[in-house]
């Protein structure tokens, strides 16, 4: 009886919709791979058995795994990372900067709590807010020139060590370079929202890619000489200047405006992608609303955040 050889495990892959599209175009190629742990909820690692013993890793191993799906923007979510330092005990946290005192933009409150509300049409502002203050978390997204110049309308994201007691670097120290993210991908449905260059005269940022589901990918780099470095800024050198409590990386600032596709009189796209929100404006007038997300992901680190944005106009 001979020994069984150690064969390599082989798993079956499926083409994504973008992969199928490229096969049809004749420019299909594969040059790199990534590993993912989308199904794992790592909180479980800290769970204890009834007798107090650690059972966390068993919980991880027993996690059921989903089948593959072909939608390329949703098929895989969380990358595994390669870091130069094998002894890290901290990675970074990613937080929205929602305190104006920290230079951030508040999210909306009440029925819109947790959202940034973007007015997609000037008529929504004129008929509802021209004589009153714009509610907290509301953005005049209908005018990209205005958005570009008004830093109070931007969305801010900080990253770093959010640990006071055990952080390897304190707030007044530099975040280790391999954890300081200077390049991010921003993904958003281009039919709904787009990015405009900060402090410009309303110059839109061109995405580096647009997939078959209208998801535009923007690439922002803080590197010197990059034409997207204006999307980054240094956090004020003050202890309470950021929701991140210890060492911080560069702040990301994102001016978002309503796409011309929805900044239009037609309701077709609004009805296809959203719906009516009753008594939305001043608790009396209905709105058409499209809920969407803007995802921001670091190119090399675990910077990862999903920003919910609700675009509205008069119904």
């Amino acid at each position: 009886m001979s020994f069984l050889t150690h064969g390599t495990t082989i798993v079956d892959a499926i083409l994504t919709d973008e992969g199928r599209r490229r096969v049809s175009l004749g420019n299909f190629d594969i040059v790199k791979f990534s590993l993912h742990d989308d199904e794992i909820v790592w909180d479980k690692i800290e769970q204890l058995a009834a007798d107090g013993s650690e059972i966390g890793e068993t919980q991880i191993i027993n996690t059921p795994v989903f089948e593959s799906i072909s939608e390329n923007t949703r098929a895989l979510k969380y990358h595994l990372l390669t870091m130069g330092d094998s002894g890290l005990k901290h990675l970074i946290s990613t937080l929205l900067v929602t305190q104006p005192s920290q230079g951030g933009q508040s999210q909306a409150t009440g029925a819109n709590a947790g959202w940034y509300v973007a007015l997609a049409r000037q008529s929504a502002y004129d008929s509802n807010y021209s004589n009153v203050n714009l509610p907290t978390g509301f953005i005049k997204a209908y005018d990209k020139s205005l958005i570009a110049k008004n830093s109070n309308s931007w969305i801010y994201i900080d990253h770093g060590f959010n640990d006071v007691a055990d952080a390897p670097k304190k707030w007044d120290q530099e975040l280790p370079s391999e954890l300081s993210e200077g390049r991010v991908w921003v993904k958003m449905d281009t039919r709904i929202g787009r990015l405009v260059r900060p402090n410009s005269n309303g110059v839109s940022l061109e995405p580096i890619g647009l997939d078959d589901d209208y998801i535009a990918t923007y690439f922002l780099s803080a590197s010197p000489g990059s034409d997207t470095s204006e999307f980054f800024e240094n956090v004020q050198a003050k202890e309470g200047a950021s929701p991140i409590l210890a060492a911080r990386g560069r702040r990301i600032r994102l001016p978002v405006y309503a796409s011309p596709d929805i900044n239009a009189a037609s309701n077709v796209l609004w009805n296809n992608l959203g719906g009516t929100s009753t008594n939305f404006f001043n608790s009396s007038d209905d709105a058409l609303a499209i809920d969407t997300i803007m995802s921001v992901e670091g190119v090399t680190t675990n910077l990862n955040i999903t920003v919910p944005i609700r675009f509205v106009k008069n119904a």
Partner: protein
Amino acid sequence: MATKFSPNITIEYAKQYPKEALVVTASIFSGSFGEPAIATSNIKDHSLGYYQTTYDYPHLSQSASPLCDITYGVRSGGAFTTTAGTTADPHAKENIYNQMSALILGYNQTGSLRVFDLSGSFDTVASSVMDSPTFFNFSRLVMKDEIKAGSFELVIDEDTWKEPMSFTGSLITITDADSTNLENGLRILKTSAGNNVGILDRFRGIAAIQLSSSLVSTVFDNEDIDFFVSASDARSWDYEESIENATILELATATRHRIQRLSLTNTTQLNNAIYYITAQGAEFNYSSNPSYVNTSSQIRVCLSAGTPDNGKVAYSYVTGIGLYASDGELMAVAKISKPVRKQHGFPFSIGVRLTV
């Protein structure tokens, strides 16, 4: 240097030939769903009468799939003088013969069509020439990329016509098992007694069978044996009369009712690219999963009872693999049925098979 990708991929190309055995019984050919005249039939006559299609289910159903077409050909200048083809085309059988011959056999050096020949020599008109072949044209669903050699088997009742056929005591099996390979994927079809009765084109999924001479007793040539009968029309034709006077659709119906079973094994050619990926020991040991760190940015797997433990080294678990184009777009995705641990010092290798 932190990264989320690795170019450490080697590619191996391979082919697979999965096979599938199919059996179509008399209940499909002439049983369960009735004849074309009724709406729920699984038999559909071609609108111009050139062939008849058998479906696996009533053909008007969206879930119905075609299995095979049956049609007839008559060689011009052969033993039969046909007067009927389709309603509009009296030369339909000759045209079908020529069409099949041109497609399967081609033209000879003089520019003439080669002829179907039971001997496997298609260039001369001899006594073994098939003058009135029945053609079974299998759908892609049935034949896939090709019919496996030696797998075709047709069991047909040679008894005189009756409705329904009895399928007892008078069955002839026609097969390419233990047969000879001819040119270009063609194989001779034989009865179980060893008599040559037709030609199988494995790659086109077409069986040409000469029923008149195919059967040991040549019963269809016997004028006392009716090949095709339509009681309502008071017709009682032997094989020769049927070939000359019946339409293609009538002949297809007669043939269909004689089939007790048809079986074959199809073959599909799958082209695989296997991407062997290797994550080195120092790679992919951390995760960007937001739950990988707690609200204090601490890596959860490096904690003991909620506080950092210097004795623990970060590790991760793999559940998914992404394959990317040079511009970073996700081209293919694979999942692992059970999370696999990835930790420092231990490489992780796996093959990702992409089938086209």
